[in-house]
């Protein structure tokens, strides 16, 4: 795409998210969400491939509907309470409607059906943007209004997200769809303690962003898109292949890696508040996503490729310039000792 247009689109993408996060008035939050959606549509449809157009169409419909439901709930709240303040969204049914609209924007189950398809239809870098940056504006609104939500609805969203993220990811071979289901699962964990502890919401979000960014950087650098490509990833870069194994374990939430921090602290908070069935269900359903992370590890790192390869390094005609993976990877693997400082 023309670099001037691309830079304008990326600036608007950033601006939309920042406007939403920095706003006090509901209308400005809606403006930021709309700007974000409008800016990413050409980025999604950049390749003019039928799959890219379909992904852009589905993304547009879902996000536009969710934005209009958000504005609708804020207007109803303005009629009832007289204020457009984001933190003053109090009279029912407004917070419930807002939560459902935000769940639609984030891709929480049962409103998750668009996320795997949209992430599959675009290239890896755009999928990275959808999985990380596009979660920030709805999360900002969730953070500000989280004290008005009902725990029942939050538990339902959390349980269905983790279960669906785990189960549906089991039958996938395309890596972008697998990352989409992993995203759904992590968002389920985030939404379960949004009412109880906002600090943990932000902590889980940041650690999820770090881990997902690391994983995507590894996949972009080695240009692997399916599990079949993962089998030959060791020829592209053996170091990256073994690092990917440990990053996948971090995504699965295994100690002593960083992915364990949010799960541990969330389970601690949930048991302190005596929400034991929720905590148990979340913990058990994260085993399902661990299964497909283990499968990716097995295919890429623990098995030998079936053909004899003549050279240990693959000759690539078009080198992908990697974003520096080192800081991301170090933070996804080694952050546990600083837990007392961040909680």
């Amino acid at each position, binding site marked *: 795409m023309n670099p001037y247009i691309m830079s304008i689109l990326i600036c608007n993408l950033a601006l939309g998210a920042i406007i939403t996060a920095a706003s006090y008035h509901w209308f400005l939050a809606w*403006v930021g969400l*709309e700007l974000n959606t409008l800016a990413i549509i050409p980025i999604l449809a950049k390749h003019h491939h039928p799959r890219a157009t*379909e992904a852009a*169409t589905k993304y547009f*419909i879902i996000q*536009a*509907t969710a934005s209009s439901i958000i504005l609708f709930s804020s207007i109803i709240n*303005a009629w009832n309470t007289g204020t457009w303040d984001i933190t003053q969204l109090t009279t029912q049914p407004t917070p419930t409607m807002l939560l459902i609209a935000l769940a639609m924007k984030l891709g929480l189950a049962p409103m998750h059906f668009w996320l795997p398809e949209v992430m599959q239809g675009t290239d890896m870098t755009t999928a990275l943007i959808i999985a990380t940056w596009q979660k920030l504006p709805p999360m900002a609104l969730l953070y500000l209004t989280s004290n008005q939500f009902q725990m029942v609805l939050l538990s339902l969203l959390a349980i269905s997200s983790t279960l669906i993220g785990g189960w549906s990811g089991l039958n996938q071979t395309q890596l972008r769809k697998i990352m989409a289901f992993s995203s759904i699962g992590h968002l389920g964990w985030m939404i379960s303690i949004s009412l109880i502890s906002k600090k943990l919401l932000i902590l889980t979000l940041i650690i999820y962003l770090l881990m997902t960014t690391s994983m995507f950087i590894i996949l972009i650098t080695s240009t692997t898109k399916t599990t079949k490509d993962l089998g030959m990833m060791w020829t592209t870069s053996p170091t990256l292949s073994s690092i990917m194994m440990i990053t996948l374990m971090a995504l699965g939430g295994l100690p002593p890696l960083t992915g364990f921090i949010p799960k541990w602290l969330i389970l601690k908070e949930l048991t302190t508040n005596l929400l034991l069935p929720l905590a148990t269900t979340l913990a058990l359903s994260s085993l399902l996503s661990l299964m497909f992370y283990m499968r990716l590890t097995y295919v890429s790192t623990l098995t030998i490729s079936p053909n004899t390869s003549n050279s240990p390094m693959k000759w690539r005609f078009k080198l992908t310039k990697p974003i520096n993976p080192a800081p991301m990877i170090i933070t996804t693997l080694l952050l546990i000792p600083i837990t007392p400082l961040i909680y």
Partner: protein
Amino acid sequence: MSMILFLLKIAFLLGLLGLSIHRTHFMSILICLEGMMLILFLMMATFTTSTNTPTTAILPILLLALSACEASTGLALLVATSRTHGTDHMKALSLLKC
């Protein structure tokens, strides 16, 4: 709750229902989306007059500007869909199914 607000709420929900339970065409989704935006415009305009808050009088105009941008994006996607898939039938958008 006043009668106007009740009717506008019902109208928005009808538009939302029409958007969710689309039958064949992508165009009907876009029309329902525009209908929802129009209802939001009416709600904002009647909010300004009913509660006598002149500070929010500009909001319907800003909403209109932004929803026009959104509508044009939707139409551009409709054109792109009909160029790549041939129709605007929603059933044709099935290349990415799990």
